């Protein structure tokens, strides 16, 4: 019987393992010519977290935005998360950490396409501060791309990034919501991508220090302004595809100068 116990740690090792294959996809997943097939809608267990205190950082006022057109200003040599912590190299969301900040001709291969329900993920390590928080994104629609005058080149969205900080010794998480109201972003406008950077002061770093997970949600503002188009930011509400669909193409999440433990 004792010999059986000796094998238990090995079995446990195998059962808790499979880290790399726990996220395995059939060939070509998220890389379809059908717009609706490419949505990434996973919350990776974050939705089930027990939430404690919620605090909000509204419209962080030192936002600096830029349109990335030529890749020089915010090119591939940025301080991406993979460079700062190798554990960000694995998984589908490594697309968001690889330094490819804009449409680089690889279309679906470099971006994560999001419905208004957004996505969430656990970090591979615990966040322990950074100089700033930044992200690169643009809008994308099913509107015929070939008709030049029909393109929606810019849209306004409300976006919320939520950070989840585990309260020590418990299974409860405090949540810090970083809200961006009326954020003007580039949409179907060639390769233009909007880059948003929020410099962190000590107070902000302190607020989200120890974050284990983050999520992102958004909603498209002023739907009426897109005259001539019946458009929705929730493809699930329109299974028969009677409307044009809008999604966020998220290219990058950055925490320049970050520390992870």
């Amino acid at each position, binding site marked *: 019987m004792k010999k059986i116990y000796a094998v238990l740690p*090995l079995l446990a*090792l*195998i059962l808790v*393992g*499979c*880290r*790399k*294959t726990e*996220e*395995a*996809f*059939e*060939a*070509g*997943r998220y*890389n379809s010519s059908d717009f609706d097939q490419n949505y990434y809608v996973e919350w990776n267990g974050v939705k089930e977290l027990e939430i404690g205190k919620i605090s909000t950082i509204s419209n962080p006022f030192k936002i600096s935005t830029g349109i990335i057109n030529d890749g020089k200003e915010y090119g591939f040599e940025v301080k991406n998360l*993979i460079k700062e912590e190798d554990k960000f*190299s*694995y*998984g*589908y*969301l*490594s*697309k968001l*950490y*690889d330094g*490819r900040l804009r449409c680089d001709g690889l279309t679906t*291969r*470099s971006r994560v396409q999001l419905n208004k329900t957004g996505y969430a993920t656990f970090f591979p390590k615990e966040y322990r501060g950074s100089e700033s928080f930044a992200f690169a994104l643009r809008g994308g629609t099913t509107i015929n791309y070939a008709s030049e005058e029909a393109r929606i080149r810019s849209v306004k969205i409300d976006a919320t990034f939520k950070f989840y900080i585990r309260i020590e010794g418990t299974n409860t998480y405090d949540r810090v919501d970083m809200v961006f109201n009326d954020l003007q972003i580039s949409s179907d406008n060639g390769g233009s991508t909007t880059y948003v950077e929020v410099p962190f002061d000590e107070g902000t770093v302190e607020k989200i220090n120890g974050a284990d997970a983050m999520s992102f949600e958004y909603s498209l503002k002023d739907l009426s302004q897109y005259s001539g188009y019946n458009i929705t930011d929730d493809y699930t509400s329109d299974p028969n595809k009677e409307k044009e669909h809008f999604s966020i193409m998220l290219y990058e999440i950055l925490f320049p100068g970050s520390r992870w433990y």
Partner: protein
Amino acid sequence: MTAKKSFKGYEGIVAFLIFEVLALTTFGLGGINIVFHIAGFLVATFALLTSGNQFKKGELLHLLVFIVPLFIFAVLVSLAGSDYFEGKILENICSLLGIMGFFFMGLAARRNESFNIETALICIGGGLALLVLINTFATWFDYGPFYPLIFSSKPDGYYRGEVINLTKEMNVLVGLKFYESTISYGTQFAVLLSASIPALFFIDRKKETKKFLVVALYAVISILAIATVTSITGIIFLAIVLVIGVVYKFFRDNDLFKKLLKWAFIVILGLGCLFVILVIINNITSTSIFAQNAFLNKVFNTNHVMSKINAVLSPAFKPYNLFGFHSGNIDDVYGQTYDALLSSSGHFELEILKEGGIFALISLITFGVFSFFSTGRYLKNSHDNSSTKSVLLTFFIVFVLYYSVAFETFPLIHVKEYLNSFSRSTPFMVLLFLVGYVANSKKIAPVEFEKKEKKTKDVGTGVSAVEEYDFSDSDQEEKE
């Protein structure tokens, strides 16, 4: 007092050091092969000083048939300055010392009274088993057992934003860190370890229980490792190992079988040589001689295997590549040499071309031919028991075959620049040691010690090893 006399009496220590070096070398630590090259050379020097007087008169002269081609090979792959090793002076010198050192260590070990080949094989197996076990557990932890089968319909994963095929990689220990490697690279250690399986046919389970259990453990580890990463090549090699074991157990004294095997070998070798000559002619001519015929063109040019071979052979006969591949030559208009250096040919013979050039390959083939006949004489005449002989024979066959079809030059999937040099790899060092151990000349038998004559009856044949050994007879046979 001469050096030989001053080291006399240290045979036990030397034998111990040889076991240590072998175990550590087979366990390996990825990129620090240089340490094992130095260790092998130092222990070989010490071993030669203690056992040097055991060489028969004129024996070393006869052993030159091994030493000279091996030395030429070692000089070319170490010092000719292929782009792979350019500027790495210390590493290059250590490579030369390591290649010669491990071979001489094998020669000296056979003449060391305290050395026991069975213990050495257990050490080699132990090092391999430990490495295989670590790699297997690490792979299970990240991928789970049998993942290539389980995830065959969902093979895609992501690494640094790029799609990867999870079913074609596994974890291996390189240095002190785990990396994702190709399955054929990761499985090589398990395949080499599987060479222990034929010994199970010869060890008496009741009389030699401990030895049987150790070898059985090695066999189980190798089978488990190959099966759980579902390596098709590995499974084929397990079958080959079993066939070798069965043949050696039941047919080695069957004259008809031996005759059939001999002729089959001659025919295969003849056809192989003809094919190689045609392939070489096809590559040294300015345009392919087979391009006009659709079938021959498919066989010699436009298939997945041959295109890789041609990519290396084509620039191999250019004057600037005769002593190892050197890119950047003004005559290399299309950058063929550079492309060949960056490609993984899959065959160790072609890697030798890249590392040391055509003369290095010829030297190694010469060394291999003498080793082949030497192994034949060893199997026939040595006092070593059948389990040892079966393991050595299997190891040699498996080593040459596996690296001929599944050698990986750049095996780490996410660290593209990591070079797995054949001539500097630790398995090659172990092979050289074992070849050194079996090396003998046609005329002069190696010293056999009296203690070996006290051997128990050979379990495999039921004939005592002493009775089996009759060197003068075999010599006569060879003359006939």
